[in-house]
């Protein structure tokens, strides 16, 4: 199982506390994880990636094993620790004050 950590507002939207656990078929990549996430929770379509282009929304970043993978290719393999479910794939929202 892949662990996915999403920001508070998206957890509220899908009604899940803590990490989301997903089965991912095939190679574990940003794209395959997000495809599986959106398949399980269709309401998340458009909230993390643009619906049409699949590009990451500007105020979000992706982290894996403490590394910013936001600018990696979407089909690049995520670290083994993420693929084994030991560490989460994390979606982080930009900090904002005011």
């Amino acid at each position: 199982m892949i662990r996915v950590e999403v920001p508070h507002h998206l957890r509220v939207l899908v009604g899940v506390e803590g990490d989301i656990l997903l089965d991912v078929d095939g190679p574990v990549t940003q794209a395959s994880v997000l495809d599986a996430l959106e398949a399980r929770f269709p309401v998340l379509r458009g909230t993390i990636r643009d619906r049409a282009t699949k590009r990451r929304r500007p105020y979000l970043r992706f982290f894996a094993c403490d590394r910013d993978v936001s600018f990696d290719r979407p089909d690049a393999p995520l670290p083994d620790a993420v693929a084994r479910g030991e560490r989460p794939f994390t979606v982080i929202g930009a900090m904002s004050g005011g």
Partner: protein
Amino acid sequence: MTGVRVLVGTRKGGFCLTSDERRQKWEISGPHFAGWEVYHMKGSPVDPDRVYASQSTSWFGQLIQRSDDGGRTFTPVGNDFAYAGRPEDHQWYDGTPHPWEFKRVWHLEPSLIDPDVVFAGVEDAALFRSDDGGQSWQEMPGLRHDTGGRDWSPGAGGLCLHTILLDPSNPDRMYVAISSAGAFRTDDAGGIWKPVNHGLRSAQIPEGEAEVGHCVHSIAFHPSRPDVLYMQKHWDVMRSDDAGEMWHEVSGDLPSDFGFPIAVHPHEPGTVYVIPITSDSVHYPPEGRLRVYRSRTGGNEWEPLSNGLPQENCYVNVLRDAMSVDRCDAAGVYFGTTGGQVYVSPDSGETWQAIVHDLPAVLSVEVQTLS
């Protein structure tokens, strides 16, 4: 009448305020969608339990929520707002081409006859329609294509389609308004559109009397006289007596003719309300005194209504979708401020009281009159 439900969209969520027809004691529920911007909430005139809400943030984009129990619970519906055809350009602030990009839904207008039909006005400006209760959305592309969308440019608030008026006497006729493009009308249910801006004058644009390019802030009519339109423009309060073919100014003796919302009394088609704001540079009421102005003559002659409103040190704004009226026998007028107050007048504006004082900045106020 059994009462009213006031739907309030704010910077940090949506709220429902309910009261009986005396409108003295209120129940407050919310925030719905806590922490999200709720640009607009509006109920179906056919089925008042059906409420649509626009929920968005810059982080996570746009969601549409629908309630089928009068705003007690909401369910997300469709959020795929894909422009029809090839992406095009409009003008950017500096006159250069800029690609059309969906940002958010500013206004939701449920059909007058079918609770599953709802229109959405969006930024970058376009009009969408759903025939399945918000599950799916299709652009009505004639608006952008027929009226020179490539020449539209955004106002400071964005290139937003913020006003949608459905003519109750003619199901084929509707109006929309866009900042800063102007007002547009269709007479064939959204197939073909034309600008209806003759008579508008805007000193802030290169051609002051151009066919498009005017920053229209809001338009309103009375359902019994849908050819008589009232407009609050960036500057100027305007009126058209012929469905927008020609406009004339009715600012008259207002202390400022800059403002955002405009509303028409529910039982008196010639009675109009505006909330003057000091200027385009200074977005708060003149002299720090919050006053609604009412004209009982269809404009030109205006009277201040201030009983119960703060008359010193008040520096809030009232945004374009943040004023509404109910249909109670004793007509109610409502508005919300960027300071988080929602005010009601249960007597057509003679007296005012705050329903709530401390909501997040209010973006929109809509009223459902319940029976």
